[in-house]
């Protein structure tokens, strides 16, 4: 080893800090030979410069532009799990409080449902009462509208005809509406064609 200087490949071996039996004589030579020491030091400085080179940053919108072209399909159960996870408080005391609140609410709702089921007849009576009131309000409103548009005679005839008459009247109205729309569209198209 002493009769020659270190080869460039041997300097590389020393730079990379590999372990091995063959490196001990290389290190020993580098310690004794000023020229090889200088070469090794210059190589180390080069490596330090290279190791110190910075990363360059792309533009601020780079990530958004990438994601615009990436096909992400998130299954519904993953979205649901993430949504639930976001609702869970971070701290343990808050989680305990939230759990207590949820349990209390669930218990109260269960008691209310059980109580209602026990008084089902009352629930049915109230529901039917509200439905009758709503139906009466709708019929009155429609009656007023028909009277305003078609007059008292038509309104009376419609009221006497019952449900079938009302359904027929509604169907006639819808058909007239569709026919009118189609006619208007045809007229508009003809007008535009004539102008062009």
């Amino acid at each position, binding site marked *: 080893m002493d009769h020659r200087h270190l080869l460039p490949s041997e300097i590389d071996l020393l730079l990379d800090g590999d372990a091995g039996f063959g490196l001990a004589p290389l290190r020993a030579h580098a310690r004794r030979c000023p020229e090889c020491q200088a070469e090794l030091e210059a190589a180390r400085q080069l*490596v330090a410069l*290279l190791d110190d080179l910075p990363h360059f940053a792309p533009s601020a919108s780079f990530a958004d532009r990438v*994601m615009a*072209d*990436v*096909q*992400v399909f998130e299954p519904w159960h993953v979205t649901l799990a*993430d949504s639930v996870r976001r609702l869970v408080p971070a701290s343990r005391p808050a989680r305990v409080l939230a759990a207590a609140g949820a349990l209390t609410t669930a218990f109260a709702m269960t008691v209310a449902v059980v109580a209602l089921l026990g008084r089902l007849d009352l629930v049915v009576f109230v529901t039917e009462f509200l439905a009758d009131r709503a139906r009466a309000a709708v019929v009155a409103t429609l009656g007023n509208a028909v009277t305003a548009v078609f007059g008292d005679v038509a309104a009376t005839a419609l009221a006497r005809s019952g449900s079938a008459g009302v359904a027929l009247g509604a169907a006639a109205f819808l058909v007239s509406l569709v026919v009118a729309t189609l006619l208007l569209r045809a007229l508009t198209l003809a007008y535009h064609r004539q102008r062009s």
Partner: protein
Amino acid sequence: MPPPLDLTNLPDADVVLLAQQGRERAFRELVRRYERPVFSLIYRMVRDREASEDLAQDSFVKVLNHIDRYRPEFKFSSWIFKIANNVAIDFLRKRQLDTVSMDGSPHAGSASEVEASSFELADRQETALDEMEAREIGTAIERAIARLRPEYRSCIMLRHIEGRSYEEIAATLDLPLGTVKTYIHRARNELRVALQDVRE
């Protein structure tokens, strides 16, 4: 119920697994981790900022749209660097860029293209003389790297800027280990010679 996912401290393999499950945050985390290294690798290869952004974007899109193909026995970083290196090499072959001036690409046709292909380096907190010397060396080394063959450039950047081992570089670039060592050895030699004048 576990707290909201914190992806920052998860290893790459775990983030990729979450991305394979369809979590958009996992995709974004992978972009966040590797946008600078990938862009830097490509930018030092092609020396055109706008083209580098497009190529880096293509690299990420290719990888993330095929995230289901990732195999956990390999590093995600090796995969994305391989794709990035390949797109850069393909671009260079098309453009036939051999050497690039630090003051801008010789192919630049307008002031904006010259600016896009020239380097900007960060300022340092040193004395005026130190700063001038440091900028000169820093610029000189970027020049010297730009003059390396693309294959040498990839190897030297993965070795020293990304801190990859020879074995990882060989796996990333699909080269034999001996070839990687040869390329890095030759690249260091060329850089040493190129920087000789600056030191003297």
